[in-house]
């Protein structure tokens, strides 16, 4: 990658200072993965870089770091996680699309992979053509939640209420292209209503204003909302998955609550640049499967309110099918809503 020399300098300089050397180990020394065009045979014979196109410590980053260690153990190498942020994950994805297709640069991306083509013009890459899929990782359920004194009691009440008061109700989200924004769009499409959306910069502030009663309702990942739901600070109407969520046994699914069209989860998958040798992809996919079966990973994901995907979904084909299906879904939803990010 074009940045490798700078990484190496950074790593060396930082290592010179005792205290900071730890951080260099975490961030700076993605130096090993240069331009060598390895084929499948000896793969992997050097460090692999996992690019996370979002900030360190965020949900996607957490999931990546969880699976990186067991995957590295299975592959018999080191995996370095690198955060390349910007423009809804498209900066990092673009960088991986242009990287050497040798299996040493791997991208972790979420649902945003399938929404970016509809949101951004001149994206610079095509998800299906410029990437090879390795396998799905996890699907995080979402919840429809409202301020606790919001009138509607059930999801059907909510739909009726927002239809009758479309000019008054406010729907919060965590910013253009965020999972909560997509879920909100899907809600409006499923309920057949157009609402006033209130974007925030991230989930934290949006949830703060929801708890404070400044906005009416929103849709967000279980990870973010379940603490507020169980404490009664917000009202939960439904989870957006086919099955109920273990940590929220009393919250019905959207199908049970009468809005079956509202099906959405934040799915994550691993990608390599298109043209990566088949046997390399296979090795990565096997390692992913092993990591998802790892006890520690299952436990940690359970704490996040999610589960690893079943083994048959951690494959290139299942991942590709999912991507294709989602690209179609979101192209329509986003075009109908008339949203553009650039």
């Amino acid at each position: 990658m074009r940045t490798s020399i700078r990484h190496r300098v950074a790593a060396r300089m930082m290592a010179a200072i005792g205290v900071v050397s730890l951080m260099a180990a975490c961030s700076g020394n993605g130096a090993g993965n240069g331009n060598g065009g390895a084929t499948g045979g000896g793969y992997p014979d050097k460090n692999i870089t996992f690019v996370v196109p979002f900030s360190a410590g965020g949900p996607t980053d957490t999931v990546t770091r969880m699976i990186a260690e067991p995957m590295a153990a299975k592959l018999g190498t080191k995996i370095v996680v690198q955060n390349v942020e910007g423009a809804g994950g498209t900066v990092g994805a673009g960088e991986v699309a242009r990287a050497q297709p040798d299996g040493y640069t791997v991208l972790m991306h979420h649902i945003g992979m399938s929404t970016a083509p509809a949101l951004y013009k001149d994206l610079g890459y095509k998800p299906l053509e410029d990437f090879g899929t390795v396998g799905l990782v996890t699907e995080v359920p979402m919840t429809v939640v409202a301020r606790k004194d919001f009138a509607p009691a059930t999801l059907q009440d909510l739909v009726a209420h927002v239809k009758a008061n479309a000019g008054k109700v406010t729907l919060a989200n965590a910013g253009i292209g965020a999972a909560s924004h997509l879920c909100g769009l899907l809600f409006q499409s499923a309920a057949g209503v157009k609402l006033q959306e209130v974007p925030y910069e991230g989930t934290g502030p949006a949830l703060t204003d929801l708890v404070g009663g400044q906005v009416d309702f929103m849709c967000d990942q279980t990870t973010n909302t379940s603490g507020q739901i169980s404490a009664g600070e917000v009202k939960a109407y439904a989870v957006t998955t086919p099955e109920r969520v273990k940590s929220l046994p009393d919250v019905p699914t959207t199908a049970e609550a009468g809005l079956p069209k509202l099906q959405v989860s934040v799915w994550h998958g691993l990608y390599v640049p298109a043209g990566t040798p088949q046997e390399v992809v296979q090795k990565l996919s096997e390692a992913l499967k092993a990591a998802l079966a790892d006890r520690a990973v299952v436990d940690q994901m359970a704490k996040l309110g999610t589960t690893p995907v079943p083994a048959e979904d951690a494959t290139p084909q299942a991942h590709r099918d999912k991507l294709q299906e989602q690209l179609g879904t979101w192209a329509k939803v986003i075009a109908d809503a008339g949203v553009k990010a650039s």
Partner: protein
Amino acid sequence: MDLLDNLALGFSTAFLVQNVVYCFVGVLLGTAVGVLPGIGPTATVAMLLPITFNFEPVTALIMLAGIYYGAQYGGSTTAILINLPGESSAAVTALDGHEMARRGRAGAALATAAVGSFIAGTVATVALAVAAPPLARVALTFGPAEYFSLVLLGLIVSITLARGSALKALAMIALGVLLGTVGQDIYTGTPRFVFDQRELYGGIDFVSVAVGMFGVAEILRNLEKEQTRTAVVSKVRNLWPTREDRRRIVGPILRGTGLGAALGVLPGGGHVLASFTSYAVEKRVSKRPQEFGHGAIEGVAGPESANNAAAQTSFIPLLTLGLPAHPVMALMVGAFIVHGITPGPNVITDEPALFWGLIASMWIGNVLLVMLNLPLIGIWVRMLRIPYQVLFPMIILFAAIGTYSLGFNAYDVYAIAFFGILGYVLIKCGCEPAPLLLGFVLGPLLEENLRRALIISRGDPSVFLTRPISAVLLALAVAALVVAVLPTIRRRRETMFTEED
């Protein structure tokens, strides 16, 4: 006494050997990243988060919290010594702190910062222990309209940051606001001033602007003068504050602490306002306002205390409601989750040992910080004797590495160079970087909340006046404006009268 029982539980948790050790590790790391330009607490916490996966939850949180408030301590060191603020709050400290250092009083400035931070940290920790849940409820009554009015008030009050021409200061604020608009608009997704560079979609990084405008510009200015080009005046006078200094810093520390503690509770940006507002207040109440900007010790004591008090109380929304006030807190939410604790209002009741242990550890952390920082002052001051041929390139190198490591975005490094040159040109034109930075930080907050309030009210601007808190804040803003303008008018009338005589 519930509170005493709780505190006893907290201290018995916090005083466990591993918790004290990791508290120390946290504040030490925090101090280190605070001192090193470029690398902030957000990046550090993010990088260390995975390492804490195997810790006890309370130990992990104690260490991560220590990094955060430790960095607030450390940030003032580089701001004072080499005019290189790593965070928006430290930019205010740099104004008078670095002037003090240039006059050979770096030791006194550093000691003031450390002592002020300790007092503020202690008081704010008590506030956290005594009144966290009710304070959090108050904070929740602040919606977009209230934040808009609060930021507006802060902006008006802080115009006193300027030392020279008011017109130039206003121009700098406007430029800062404009720079703050760079990036993708969060409401419509429209990219603004990005010139088709996807790397600019996320906006310009604060650290790049601060390092460039303050640090690099300062270095360029120093290089100009063949004779005096040292980072500061080489002769360092007394290392500790004099009796006179001690008398002068008591008031600012107490006022800064109160102000910071109150503002820090507000999750929507209160902590950002703390140091700016404190500086403005100190300048206004001071009997020697003319000294501000020329090494007034009050200009270090007030903002540093405010900043640290706010750093502690900004944990209130997180701990009592599970709502993060800024990126570091959002990472702490991640830490809670990974440890199987769902952040939310139930943490206090479900995990009392964790809640009270964390609070108690903050006080211990503050003691450790002051013990760590006071002896270090001698060493820091000695650092100023490093010849400029070594010091200047090192500063720029560390700043570039630190900024780059945040998001592996080369544009953040280009931005340092750009703002370094811009800062130098502006200094040559007699414009100061502080108001620009103020506009850069507060401008986006102002716009974001203005637009959000209007979206929610469906475009009805009366919302700013019909919501009582917002109305009061706006009234204060008008009053502040009048107070700021009156002396000028009076002076002009006096001159007129004298001319008539």
